């Protein structure tokens, strides 16, 4: 049977499109860098790039989890609230137990995030609440819990041990620690999505849930897993957030979900689910952060940045959809050609 052949051609075409997508973002990134380098003084300075790396790090960490969720054709709007809640809880733990081990607190934050994500997953997969509604509700609920726990107060840098604050201020080999952590998470995420057998299920579910179920994939369990991982990484993100912005109150990371989703969508993760790469997400986050940094340097108002964020999502989704449509037409044509060729073979 020439089944393998067909698959290879389809796969190579798909990966070509992914590569095209990543090259497209790289190109945009290059253009942005060139533009700002000419227009904005200081843009190319090491300090500025370290700043960009720090700003983008937490977006990437949370974005990797969000990507898994979006791959399964769902969305997680509650990550901003999870980041805010775990940021406060991490800071509060340090404030009350100054001697606490950094790794332990990180694990606690991840565990709490995991639990909150699990709730999202159960709501979506078991209680059958559409992801957008479920996470819109938990966005409000988790933030409400956050406000109650903080009691309207805050934790400040002074109450936090230096070991913890160093996470955000140290720069091994000139690259901020936060960025190293983000790179680690992105690499593990990319590797998992590429090689772990179960991770391919996410793509399958996103491409066609019905077929995935018939193929014996435990759809519900995978969706719960995706949300739980997204929650856990948001928990890690919250832990890092507290180190980066050590004055933590109940409004910390409000609206952060929009930054994350922007990065994921611009990074080429298809909102229909089923396609997208971690490299794309990292590049997407970098592109957004670079442009926002450039806007700041050029003293363009905050509000234009907000406008731009939204505009970029619309453009990215439009391009994506058009490209996907082309891809599918091409796929169908190839399949038809292969079929025709087979018939021809059979005929002769």
């Amino acid at each position, binding site marked *: 049977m020439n089944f393998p052949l067909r698959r290879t051609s389809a796969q190579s075409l798909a990966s070509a499109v992914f590569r095209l997508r990543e090259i497209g973002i790289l190109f945009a990134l290059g253009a942005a860098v060139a533009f700002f380098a000419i227009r904005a003084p200081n843009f190319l300075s090491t300090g*500025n790039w370290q*700043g960009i790396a720090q700003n983008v790090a937490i977006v990437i960490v949370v974005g990797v989890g969000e990507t898994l969720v979006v791959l399964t054709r769902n969305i997680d709007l509650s990550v901003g609230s999870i980041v805010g809640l775990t940021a406060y809880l991490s800071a509060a733990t340090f404030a009350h137990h100054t001697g606490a081990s950094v790794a332990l607190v990180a694990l606690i934050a991840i565990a709490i995030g995991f639990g909150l994500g699990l709730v999202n997953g159960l709501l979506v997969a078991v209680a059958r609440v559409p992801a957008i509604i479920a996470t819109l509700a938990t966005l409000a609920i988790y*933030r*409400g819990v956050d*406000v109650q726990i903080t009691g*309207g107060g805050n934790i400040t*840098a002074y109450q936090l041990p230096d070991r913890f604050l160093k996470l955000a201020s140290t720069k091994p080999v000139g690259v901020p620690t936060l960025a190293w952590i983000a790179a680690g998470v992105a690499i593990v995420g990319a590797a998992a999505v590429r090689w772990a057998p179960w991770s391919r299920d996410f793509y399958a579910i996103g491409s066609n849930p019905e077929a995935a179920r018939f193929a014996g994939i435990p759809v519900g369990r995978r969706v719960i897993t995706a949300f739980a991982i997204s929650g856990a990484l948001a928990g890690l993100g919250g832990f890092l957030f507290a180190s980066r912005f050590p004055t933590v109150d*109940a409004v910390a990371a409000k609206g952060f979900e929009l930054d994350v989703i922007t990065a994921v969508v611009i990074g080429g993760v298809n909102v229909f689910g089923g396609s997208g790469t971690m490299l794309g997400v990292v590049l997407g986050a970098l592109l957004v952060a670079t442009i926002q940094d450039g806007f700041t340097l050029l003293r363009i108002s905050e509000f234009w940045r907000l406008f731009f964020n939204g505009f970029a999502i619309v453009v990215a989704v439009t391009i994506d959809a058009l490209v996907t449509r082309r891809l599918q037409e091409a796929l169908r044509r190839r399949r038809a050609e292969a079929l025709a060729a087979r018939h021809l073979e059979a005929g002769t």
Partner: protein
Amino acid sequence: MHRRRLAVTGIVAGAALVTMLALTLSAGARTSKGYKIFFLPKTTTIPVFTQNALGAKAAAKELGDTITYNGPTDVSGPKQVPFIDSAARQGYNGIVISTSDPNAVAPALKRAAAKGVKVVSYDGDTAPDSRTIFVAPSSNKLIGAIEVQWASDETHNKGEVAILSATPTSPNQNTWIKFMKQELAKPKYKNMKLVKIAYGNDDPTESAKQTQALVQAYPNLKAIIAPTTVGIQAAAQELQQEGKCKKIQLTGLGLPNDMRKYVKAGCANKFGLWDERAFGYLATYVVHNVIAGKLTGKLGQTLKAGKLGTFKVVVSDGNKPVVVLGPPLAFTPKNIDKYHF
């Protein structure tokens, strides 16, 4: 299967019932001695308002009044409106409000006033015709003057000074800068020279960058005045990282909690802000006196505000009638541990 679903439904319903019961109990009964005062912040999520409320509760205890502190979770004038209406319906005697949208809350406050509720605004003023008195933390002139004073104290009254502001369009900032310039023009500050006004956009990263640029561009810089809580914190961090704390003095407006670390490290020896607890305390005394009919908003009236002393109803920054808390409080390494906000 059926039974399991019933069980789940039962558990959910039970949980809902328990929650409702808990809420019912937490709503609680209240004693009806003294005045009932509703303290409505811009939002309950920001710590300074929690501090205002603590001061307000202390004042209410002294006065025998009851304070209810509640507000929306978003900074939004319209979201305060249901709270105002609800306070009026519950028969509160007075409302103390800080708002971000002076006009959006005005109609509701007037509705409340029509029901006999006395309204006092503080911190974020409302439209003047919708409240009896505004309690201001300080006056712009006092803020501008005292910051120059602090910079002068720390630099032995000589040398180059720079200002690290928020955004070029912020009205508060620009008024303060105007008064700082006026103050610096006085003969007693003739040896101090304002070299640059930088803008950090109230963004920590940008403020840090601007500080770095100031340090590099003005090698003889002796002091930075940052009249913004975001700016002063970022500047302190930057000066500490660059090891310039001895050489360049930092002053301005900042929160003690934000700055404690840098004060202890010797990177900010004198900066200020009003005492947020005293602010809430004073506002409560004002509303109490308004309810009692002792204050009507006539200029020149005076009130005794417990441990804070006597205050006068005045015109301040072109606004009236206003009760002004006073010049900002100076935080120094000696007194900073007394303040927690």
